[in-house]
């Protein structure tokens, strides 16, 4: 019975897929269109490209996008560098039967609420918090240094989450690799370093790319982490958007900024998708 999808069914399939489709159209597509329409007006006025114009001409606006991209880039690189060896240790150095437990332990702290997680870092990095207190006690510094409300704090909060995420994707990828690759490479005379560079690394690139892409999407769109940890000293794109809503009630400008942010993510997605396809071919 290979002809699975028969034409028979009449209205039944439409009744089945209809609700999900309508939901997506009404509460995802329609809001997007509404946002696009509102973005080309000015508050209380008619059609205007002023919002986009403002973004591209006012440094304090486009600076936010650069900040977002910079922070994301830094976070992605640090997270990959920290997560890769960790994933390797979990996958290769820990006995098989402990791996599940080790992974569960690594994920456990992320079951706190996402707002609470950023708050916890604030506790750690505060002026009289755990880190400063310890450093002063050890005599390494005389006075507390400012850690909270800096880009450093934002990056730390992000890295904390993305190290976990990347560890998972890279771990999954490492586990899929057949041990015979390594044996074959060793058999052909490659040392551990060359085996890693020429065999293991290329084969785990897809896992890294998936993790990096997730990092990019989640970090550029996140409001909580930069707001709680970075404060208002340096605005990232989501903070700028929320500022238009919260303080000024400027929906058109917030809409325009949202659409710009989404365009950036879409471009990254397309670039990533193409890259991954080339990898596969």
């Amino acid at each position, binding site marked *: *019975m290979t002809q699975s*999808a028969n*034409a028979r*069914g009449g209205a*039944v*399939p*439409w*009744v*089945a*897929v209809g609700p*999900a489709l309508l*939901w*997506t159209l009404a*509460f*995802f*597509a*329609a*809001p*997007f269109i*509404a946002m696009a329409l*509102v973005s080309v007006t000015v508050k209380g006025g008619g059609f205007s490209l002023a919002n986009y114009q403002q973004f591209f001409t006012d440094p304090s606006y486009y600076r936010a996008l650069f900040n977002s991209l910079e922070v994301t880039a830094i976070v992605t690189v640090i997270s990959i560098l920290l997560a890769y060896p*960790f994933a390797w*240790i979990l996958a290769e150095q820990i006995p098989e039967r402990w791996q599940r437990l080790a992974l569960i*332990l690594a994920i*456990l*702290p992320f*079951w*706190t609420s*996402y*707002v*609470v997680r950023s*708050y*916890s*870092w604030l*506790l*750690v990095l*505060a002026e*009289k*918090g*755990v880190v400063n*207190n310890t450093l002063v006690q050890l005599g390494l510094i005389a006075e507390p240094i400012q850690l909270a409300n800096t880009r450093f704090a934002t990056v730390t909060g992000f890295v*904390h989450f993305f*190290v*976990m995420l990347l560890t998972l994707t890279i771990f999954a990828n490492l586990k899929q690799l057949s041990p015979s690759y390594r044996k074959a490479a060793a058999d052909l005379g490659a040392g551990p370093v060359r085996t890693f560079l020429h065999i293991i690394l290329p084969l785990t690139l897809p896992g890294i790319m998936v993790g990096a892409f997730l990092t990019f999407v*989640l970090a*550029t*769109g996140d*409001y*909580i982490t930069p707001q709680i940890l970075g404060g208002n000293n340096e605005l990232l794109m*989501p903070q700028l*958007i929320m500022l238009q*809503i919260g303080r000024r009630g400027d*929906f058109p400008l*917030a*809409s325009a900024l*949202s659409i710009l942010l*989404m365009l950036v*993510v*879409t471009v990254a*997605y397309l670039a990533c998708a193409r890259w991954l396809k080339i990898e596969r071919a």
Partner: protein
Amino acid sequence: MRSAIRLATIIYAVLIYGFIFLPVVTLVLFSFQATSFPIPPFSGPSLRWYQAVLGDARLTSALLNSLAVAVISSAVATLLGFLAAWGFARFRLPASALMRGLITLPLTVSYLIIGMGLLVLFNSIGFPKSLTAAGIGHVVINLPLCFAILYSQMGEHQANIERAARDLGAKEWQVLTLVTAPMLWPALFASFFLSMTFSWDEFVISFLLTRFDTTLPVEIWNLLRSGLNPKTNAVGSLVFLVSIAFVLLFELVFFRKSRS
């Protein structure tokens, strides 16, 4: 040489685990603080902040709101995702790939933008900010996930089983309720559970779309305005506890299932 690598490995793993656990340990430890600031030195243990949390009607009602929104929106997302997955897997529909793409599209858009869009839409049609509005947003973010999970589980073997049921006289709704849903029970449960955790943890959509009655993450956010406060630690620790209980339940149900 070998033992040096081994040592480096152990040190590295300990450091990473330390990094991962540092904030949560700090959080839980200072939730037992006796004085008013959750910073060293530790002055507890004391349960006063837990009492303060449980006595705070805003927090407890926010917790119930969060649970209600999570359960209802996850049930809706799972149901819609299940029906759509079944429809696309079992019938040949025109422009199927396009429609499936549309349903999964919200996965690639950040919550902030989804929330913004809904805010603009609801604002323009005069739909008030409410828990219902936030719940609608939560279905938007979870529906693609449920759909993707369930669609991947609808195999050809199950299609034959459904055909057998139809052959023996079952109507479409009987096929769905007596055969397809019980067969896909683990995937349905996983979808529901994942939706629950995402909804439970979601902040920005609830923040944008609710006003007076709100969810727990938003209420915690409001607490943060008063600065560092052991009460926030206590709420956070409680949320942590509830989440871990959820995960344990999930593990138990699944382990029992996979063993039988």
